């Protein structure tokens, strides 16, 4: 498992980068979701895959008797999932609103904040 999962992470990341670079906001969202999952999988793998027992200490004991599964990576992933869920909700709304106002989801066409420089005038300044 520990050799397969890194390759799987790599494949998902490659696919997500491809999607993100498409220049389409909708595809960016899909790429972002994929990449988020790949990173979570990576943390999970980096935290060692031990099929052993759940991280519970028997009653009365101070320390576990045998090796346990590492609970921390799962806590990290859970936090990351919650955060990315919130971010995703925001991103959906933002992109939808941008589509309504700007009328496009093509990032190449989004030049409202940085209009093409006006090449006619002296220092590229435009009278407005």
């Amino acid at each position, binding site marked *: 498992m520990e050799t397969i999962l890194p390759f799987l992470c790599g494949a998902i990341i490659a696919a997500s980068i491809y999607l993100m670079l498409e220049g389409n906001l909708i595809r*960016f969202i899909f790429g972002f979701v994929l990449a988020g999952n790949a990173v979570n999988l990576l943390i999970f793998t*980096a*935290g060692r895959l031990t099929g052993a027992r759940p991280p519970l200490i028997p009653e009365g004991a101070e320390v576990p008797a045998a090796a346990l599964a590492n609970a921390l990576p799962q806590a*990290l992933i859970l936090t990351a999932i919650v955060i990315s869920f919130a971010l995703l909700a*925001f991103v959906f709304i*933002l992109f939808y609103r941008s589509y309504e106002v*700007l009328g496009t989801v093509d*990032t190449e066409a*989004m030049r409202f904040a940085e209009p093409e420089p006006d090449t006619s005038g002296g220092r590229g300044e435009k009278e*407005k």
Partner: protein
Amino acid sequence: MDWLLVLPIILPFAAAATTFTLPKNDRLQNNLGILAAVLHFAACIYLLFYVSENGIISTQIGDWPAPFGITLVADHLSAIMVAVTGILSLSVTVYSKAEISPALLKAGYHPMLQILIGSVCGSFLTGDIFNLFVWFEVMLMASFGLMVMGQEKEQLDGGVKYVVINLFATLLFLTGLGLLYGMTGTLNLADLHLKVRGLENPGLLTAVAAIFMTAFGIKAGIFPLFFWLPASYHTPPVAVSAILAGLLTKVGVYALIRMFSLVFTFEIAYTHGLLLVASGLTMITGVLGAAAGSEFRRILSFHIISQVGYMVLGLALFTPLALAGSVFYILHHMIVKANLFLISGVARRVGGSFELAALGGLYRSRGVLAILFFIPAFSLAGFPPLSGFWAKLALIQASLEVKQYLIAGVAAGVGVLTSYSMTKIWGDVFWKPAPGTAGAQLIPEGGPYSPWMLLPITFLAMLTLAIGLVPEPFFELSTEAARELLDPDIYVNAVMGD
């Protein structure tokens, strides 16, 4: 003393909750915001005094001992950053009273601003890398919200780019963090410092260092990862621009300094060499972008980039003087940069535009404003005896000390180019006669600017002047911060106990 570390984080969040739940009465919101900012300011300044008197302090949240629980640490660097955050927060909140429209107040401007401030302080004070990640996320959410408030066309366009690249940086940060945890089994920064020493495979660690460098590089806006910044910082309301410009990239720089002085210090020739090249290119591209600009806030945005180059330069050289110069630079820059953005807002009020070509004649019609602009603008350019001069002097001297003549030349040359674009603003906005029929432009478009706008600008300008005229105490603080950064044992002992 534990509460001292928690206050700069707790106060803004309490204020956010209060302003969010109370009725959306404009006056009430503004006054509560200012009250919260004053309290926060006091707490932040007191923390700085306490740390400068007693040295580094730390506390374990929930009494879980390090490295298991979340640690809050304030060394000199953190305390300085938090103090400047308090200063900026107060200034911008006061300015907001005059600038932020009732519609934005109803949409939750103050809660979001307070959350941003709280999370920035959290990033500066935390001693745990996963906690740092969480603070980054909170900060991002708040800044996303502030950035697109009002939903103008330009704002949404700039906001989309800002959000997209920052989300990607976040994922990179998380990746690096996961890998680092996989190698060391710890998330506590002090413990990480101890654990990375014993690693068998330092090459792998360098790869992780590169991931962190990219993630924080995007947030800090270093070359070639800065393009989101000039695409978005000129779009939101001026008060928002000012707080974002003053704080956010500096959080990235802070994270770089922290990680590359505490954790990734085993292959300095490679990692810090890379940072040195990046810092030089950052300075040059930033200042050239600014020189080509013709819009007030876009010129200032490009200057943020070139200035970040200077801050990273200090880290890259990694000598006591260079790091002290870096810290001093951050201190000076945050105050100056936020102030310049605030002034651009007043110029817009009076002249009706951010375009340099459409502005003019402010020297004659608004003499006080001209003087208040002169101080931060030429401090940014590095004119003696203003604060920017001492910061640049320290960094250039530090580069000469280690015989990096090329980078010293770049730093000096970029300073000259900075003064070029500052004189361009000065000439166009203040000296040039107002365009169109002379005098018509002198009549303010959005009404005369209120004293609430002038108050924070004057405060910040006086502060810049004070740092310039009496640089010694500030430089002593920076030197102390640099000493702690170069001797991580101080940090480790404070967190882990001896």
